């Protein structure tokens, strides 16, 4: 049925998005990029790719954050183009995609405000895809209740938040709980939406979202070691759509150390590989301390700054995510390509920024640690 009717409304945009996908950097182009000596070279090299001369009008010297910003801007422009041309149900699908960024932005602002950061600086750091009208007002809120009633009540996040609302004060732990509860609700809702679309969209998206859910569950578990998060609370944060659910989730909820996490993942053959060598070093390393700092690293959207095993695991997750997203392009007449494209492009921007950063800081030995997309 999709083959018959999909192209009526989605064909054009699928064509566009596949065209965008063809513009993703290839392995060869990554190799060329890693050979660059200076950011100047880097710009010359990028101008030969689909990025074109997006940096041509920047005065020298170019900072890596400019590269990242400009690249993100390109992505946002593409997304907005897709979104403004989309009709139901694709428009709804794309809408759903922005919720994740909204959650991140909300958490970013709350945390920032809590730590006394400047509001306008925080607003600048928000992901442009997750910006909504009343977002700036978030900084007024001082407790969860207020947060919900002043701002979030009119955003699409409101239904997710309703479950998370408890009269608790805002502190780092609670914010993490809120974030994870929101994410859990969001993932489940998104998955339900995709299932309602049916067809290949449901299949492919379920695969991707299930992995996302499992990843979050594992991350939550690892990060909660050594914090005052109780095991019951932890169990509540696990999304229920992953491949680990329900058995693995239960094991995770009871886990006290990294080995138990690995045991929980044994059931899924793909996940077993994540812990093969990375898990070892992590197990005898600094479990709890790493967890905390990693969550802050996550918080600030700076995933590459952390060294060590957790980052290693994170990298493996990314690799697997890229793999799943690539698989999405093997099926036609479905919406998952839009999701996958945006995710791949994000990964590409992260990789490009990583390379640029390595060049700028002259850390050539680590330049190959990026995650290639195609």
């Amino acid at each position, binding site marked *: 049925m999709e083959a018959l009717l999909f192209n009526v409304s989605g064909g054009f945009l699928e064509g566009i998005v596949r065209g965008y996908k063809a513009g993703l950097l290839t392995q060869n182009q990554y190799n*060329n990029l890693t050979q*660059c000596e200076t950011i100047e070279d880097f710009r010359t090299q990028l101008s030969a790719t689909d990025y074109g001369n997006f940096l*041509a*009008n920047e005065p020298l010297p170019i900072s890596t954050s400019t590269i990242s910003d400009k690249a993100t801007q390109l992505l946002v422009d593409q997304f907005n183009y897709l979104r403004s041309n989309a009709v139901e149900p694709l428009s709804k699908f794309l809408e759903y995609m922005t919720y994740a960024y909204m959650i991140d932005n909300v958490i970013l602002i709350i945390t920032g405000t809590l730590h006394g950061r400047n509001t306008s600086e925080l607003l600048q750091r928000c992901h442009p895809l997750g910006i909504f009208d009343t977002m700036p007002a*978030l900084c007024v809120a001082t407790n969860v209740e207020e947060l919900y009633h002043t701002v979030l009540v009119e955003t699409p996040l409101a239904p997710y938040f309703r479950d998370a609302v408890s009269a608790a004060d805002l502190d780092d732990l609670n914010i993490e709980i809120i974030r994870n509860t929101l994410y859990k609700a969001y993932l489940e809702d998104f998955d339900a939406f995709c299932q309602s679309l049916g067809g290949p969209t449901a299949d492919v998206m379920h695969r991707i979202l299930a992995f996302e859910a499992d990843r979050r569950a594992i991350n939550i578990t690892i990060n909660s070691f050594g914090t005052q998060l109780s095991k019951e609370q932890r169990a509540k944060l696990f999304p229920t759509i992953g491949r680990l659910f329900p058995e693995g989730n239960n094991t995770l909820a009871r886990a006290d150390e990294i080995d138990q996490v690995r045991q929980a993942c044994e059931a899924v053959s793909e996940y077993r590989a994540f812990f093969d060598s990375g898990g070892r070093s992590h197990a005898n390393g600094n479990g709890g301390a790493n967890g905390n700092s990693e969550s802050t690293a996550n918080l600030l959207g700076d995933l590459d700054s952390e060294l060590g095993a957790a980052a290693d695991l994170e990298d493996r997750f990314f690799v697997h995510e890229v793999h799943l997203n690539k698989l999405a392009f093997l099926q036609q007449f479905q919406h998952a390509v839009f999701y996958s494209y945006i995710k791949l492009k994000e990964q590409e921007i992260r990789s490009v920024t990583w390379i640029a950063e390595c060049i700028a800081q002259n850390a050539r030995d680590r330049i190959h640690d990026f995650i290639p997309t195609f």
Partner: protein
Amino acid sequence: MGDDYPTLFRSEQMSLVQLIVPTEVAHDTIAELGELGNVQFKDLNPDVNPFQRSYVGEIRRVDEMARRVRFFASQLEKEKEPIPVRPLYDSAPLVTVGPRAAQTIDELDVKLAEHESRLTQMNESYQLLSERLRELVEARHVLRETAQFFDQAAVRETGEVRASLDDSSAPLLQHDDREQQYSSGELQFDLEFVAGTIDRARLSTFERVLWRVLRGNLYMNYIDIQEPFVDPATGAETRKNVFIIFAHGDILLGKIRKVAESMGATIYPIDVNADKRADSMREVTGRLEDLQIVLYNTGANRRTELMTIGENIASWEDVVGKEKLIYETLNLLNYDARRKTLVAEGWCPTRDIPQIQLALRHATEESGTNVPPILHELRTNRTPPTFHRTNKFTEGFQTIMDAYGVATYEEVNPGLFAVITFPFLFAVMFGDIGHGFIIFISAALMILFERKLAKADLGEIFGTFFFGRYIILLMGVFSIYTGFLYNDIFSKSLHLFHSGWEFPEAHGNDTLVGFANGHTYPFGIDPAWHGAENGLLFTNSYKMKMSIVLGVIHMTFAVCLQVPNHIRFRRFSDIWTNFIPQMVFLQSIFGYLVVCIIYKWTVDWSQASTQPPSLLNMLIGMVLSPGSVDPDSQLYPGQATVQVILLLMAGVCVPWLLISKPYLQYQEMKKIQGQGYIGLGADDVPRHTDDTTLEGEEEGNGQAIVEANDEEHEQHDFSEVVVHQVIHTIEFCLGCVSHTASYLRLWALSLAHAQLSEVLWDMTLANVLGMPGVVGIIALAFVGVMWLVLTISILCVMELEGEPVVPVVEPVPTADPPHAGPPDIEVE
């Protein structure tokens, strides 16, 4: 060959040349050759990354300069009042060759950097001042609007207070006291407030959020600011509102301030006291005036700066663009570090080599050194690129042909014949003296004002017309000619000669039947057919047959075009294996049809014993039921036999075409193998011994650096030959049928054109021509204009845009054989 006048018949003879350029003169040499524009450089370092090449540094520097120039251009564009930009041909040229070249570029670089820093500085200060000005303006608005608000409130409140005081039993003295208090302190509000400005688009969100944050405990008032605020940097307009919010308590006010700030609002401290408000109003106005003067001066300064930039920007742009291209070309060259020379390889027309030599010498002189670049020809077995030397007349035609495919080196170029066939086939469809004349005049005007128009920027649509002005001119001429043939001028007919038909006097409404009066109309269609009831039938059949005749002639001609190729490339066997069977096939079916058409025209069917046969059915019958012809519709006696013979001939041609060539190839291959030779891969052949290398270099006959490795060596497999020939055969046989059918489009479009113009005439002018009196004249004038506009816009412009596409479809497939012939196959 080199002395011949350049012809379009074949592409120019090309030579692979090698240039050995000393590094000192490399830049100037490339600049000189670039101006000449007839060398195609080859990339001699294909394995080197773009950023590892020799001249990356220079390119980067030029890029930076280009960025600055672009920045200036965008600044010039943003300026509201346009700043005059001196056009390139008017500005003094910047000399970037010769001994002072490096200095010129350095100076330019510095100059650009200076201008940029000055401009950015000015922009910054201008922006800063504008920002401050905006704030002050906003403050003034806030003051004014809040004052108004307070005034209203004061009036209301005093009224109320007085009313309450009147019937109070307070003592008089106390009352006075209070009065005094009012007069001195005006009003004492219990409520505290926040006032400021906010973007209008955000106002509703702001209000909503506030309402929720304060749980409704607020009173908010807002007023639109009439004039928009313009951002000096981007020129974007924003509209703002003044708001004033009353709330009670410090916490609430703090919250309001926080929300307001996070929503991008600006808050201005406003005093409750009216006097103080008036003071600050005065102060703001005063500062505003000062600031405006400063701002005006800054703006004027900036404008003068931009003016100086505008003087030169065109030449800067030119120089920077050229420099970039020069360095990019230099990057293609191979650098010989040992001898401090650059080695270039490229293709150029053999005829132009003296010219290039001259340019090289000139470049050496210019740069002031005495080491000239050396040029010599290389021998190569590679196929040179195709180069057609065009002029402004043939350029348009050649471009159309190239859009469909470029002939191989030295093959016959269909572009030459398209100069006539293209406009003629167009004219067959467009035949109308009037319309043809209009487009002829417009093309003639474009050619007349060629120089002026070439300089102007014409825009996409008109630019296309201008580019094809000579095509349009010929189209116009031929349309006038075919218009005479069709006897059609704006859908009316001309009565130039004595008509061959006469009509009896009209009696009532009967249909009149014309009778021949013995005259023959000497040229074109007899005007008597115009308006006749069966006129359409006649022109229909006439145009249909004509388009078939023209089509078959055109295809025959195109098939013939391969003969010069075969002779040129000494593939004489191809004449027997390709050309002859193709010709026989085409002529025995479609050539026969054409002969029948012409024969049928010559027969007077009113006197003939049989009915006029339908030629279409005849052709179908010839193929489907060979050997039997219905005697009632027989065209000539013995038709059946002739047709069977022709069909057999065509039938024989197919296997002939299919088999003969591969067979010959096979024979030749066997012969060679029989002699004991084995085909060697080109790469395995030792190209030259060491001795010859040395000798060659001494004599200046260097070898090409990049040898033929990159050229795909076709594996001369026998199977490939067979497959190719099969495809070729099928393509040709099907092509004959489908192309003949395609030529019917000439008929269809010609008919459509004629009918459209007739409808246009009948619907507009024909209605008003007979009207008497003043009304008639007015209506005639009005409708006449309308008719003319519609004629020009629909029939001339729209069809001109649309129709070229149609005839182009025809010449190309038929012109295909000359260059779609099998690639020359050599057996080693």
